[in-house]
């Protein structure tokens, strides 16, 4: 019994000694595990619109036709879409912004988000950068960003001069669920599943503890490019910081209220370009056709040799398709 008491004392002393001698970092402080957002780091390029503070930058001549890139997520950022800036050399004014609560943009409370709010943000971003009333406006959306682009055209069909949708995950709740079923099959015994779930006992984070929640979601991102993933993602693509609260908020909105971005798409008479990756087994031509059918005029193109993250991994195959489409509408 004395031995047990001795060992317990050694253990308790060791832990105390160990904790008191190391320099500890604060997990809830931006800058330690995740980068600071624009409201915390004034050196980042940003704009103030619609009551929020967005991480944003532009490339090209401001008087050229404007191309607004809409990143995926919700909650991700435009870092893995930066190849699109090369279109600035081809006669387009390329605008990037991290959506509200996403990437390096300012965080907000979970209950503050709505679809209409992010549509209003896009209206304000366009107005902020637009240099003349006749300047043409094109949207280029990837994944969730493509859903957002469709939602915008659904609400404001006369405001957008061209729309490029790269694998929107579902233009309504039914299609989103269908895509989710195809792309997120899990094996409960696999390493990938353990990597995704086991961390829940190490890091939790309370609602609106953004640094913790964003970090936790970020380290789970390896799930998306795990070996054998059905979306054809070969490895990690860069991001700055994932907005977990806005993601969870939109998941709640989708589950509780549903959504349908197709109700008014018949009013949009401009040709829409759909892109899908050859290696994304969850999307494919048939799913693209289902989504494109909501538009009066559309063109569907397969991007060879890539999957869902086509803009980062195979920009050389994406660019000719996008450029050809845009030049016809310029």
């Amino acid at each position, binding site marked *: 019994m004395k*031995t*047990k008491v001795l*060992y*317990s004392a*050694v*253990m308790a002393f*060791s*832990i105390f*000694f*160990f*904790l008191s*001698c*190391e*320099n*500890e*970092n*604060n*997990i*809830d402080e931006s*800058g*330690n*595990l*995740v*980068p600071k957002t624009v409201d915390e780091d004034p050196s980042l390029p940003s704009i103030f619109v619609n009551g929020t503070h967005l991480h944003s930058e532009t490339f090209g001549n401001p008087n050229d036709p404007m191309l607004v890139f809409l990143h995926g997520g919700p909650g991700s950022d435009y870092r893995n879409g930066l190849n699109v800036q090369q279109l600035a050399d081809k006669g387009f004014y390329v605008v990037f912004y991290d959506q509200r609560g996403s990437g390096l943009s300012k965080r907000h409370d979970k209950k503050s988000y709505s679809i209409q709010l992010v549509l209003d943000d896009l209206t304000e971003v366009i107005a902020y950068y637009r240099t003349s009333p006749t300047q043409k406006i094109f949207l280029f959306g990837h994944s969730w960003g493509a859903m957002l682009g469709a939602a915008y055209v659904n609400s404001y069909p006369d405001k957008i001069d061209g729309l490029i949708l790269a694998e929107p995950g579902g233009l309504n709740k039914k299609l989103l669920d269908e895509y989710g079923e195809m792309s997120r099959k899990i094996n*409960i*015994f*696999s*390493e*990938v*599943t*353990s*990597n*995704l*779930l*086991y*961390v*829940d*006992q*190490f*890091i*939790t*984070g*309370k*609602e609106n503890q953004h640094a*913790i929640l964003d970090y936790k979601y*970020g*380290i*789970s*991102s*390896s799930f998306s490019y795990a070996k054998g993933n059905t979306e054809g993602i070969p490895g*990690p693509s*860069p*991001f*700055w*910081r994932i907005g977990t609260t806005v993601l969870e908020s939109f998941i709640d909105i989708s589950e509780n209220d549903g959504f349908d971005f197709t109700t008014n798409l018949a009013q949009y008479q401009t040709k829409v370009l759909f892109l899908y990756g050859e290696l994304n087994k969850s999307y494919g031509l048939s799913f693209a056709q289902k989504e494109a059918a909501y538009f009066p005029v559309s063109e569907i193109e397969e991007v060879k040799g890539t999957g869902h993250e086509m803009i980062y991994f195979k920009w050389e195959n994406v660019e000719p398709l996008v450029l050809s489409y845009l030049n016809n509408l310029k």
Partner: protein
Amino acid sequence: MKAIVALITFLISLLMSSFLQAQTINWENLKSEEKHILNVNAGWDYSFAYGLSYGYHLKTKMPIILESSFSLASGEVIFDDFKTKIGGQINVFQIENFRFNAAIHGIYRRYENPIVTLQNFGADASTTIGYYKPKWFVAGEFGFDKAIVTHFKHSEIYKEVYPEVKNGWYEPSTGGNFNFGIQGGYSFNKSDLTLRAGKVMTQDFKSTPLIPFYLQIGYSYKLD
């Protein structure tokens, strides 16, 4: 260096003392001469996990079991995700066949994925209140698991995402989860077949882990 020495001391003490995990025990079937309790288990503990544990039954007036456990998360890489516990449980009081028990454990656990390796020191505390007969038992349980301090070491993948990321120890507590559920079992000869199941909630009671449930099936064998 001091941290390494302290960690080694902790691990040695972990290995050398009498230790095992929170075993699911039929207190009514535990005889005073039965000293050693061996247990194997499997089930859902944040992810699918397999576990081994050992218990030492002290000769005390109030029944006490010192225990330790080791469990591994399922997956192709065997020893990257695991959890060890050391502690004990005590049958605090008994009214006929009703018993009130309490348990407390220190925890060391590890997690690794392509982006980060985490090492955590934590603790859990739990209570069970149940009805125990020599052949069977059923009880309700409530517990709290706190991740007290965690060490973060990031891979090159994350350093490309965020080059300024700070490796090292993080505080305050990096996490905490409550669990509540039921446990029960069937006892025969020197063996117990046991089942635990319940729900997990994070410490703010507003959110849950991605899979907010736990389930464990176990087999225990008692030796004199």
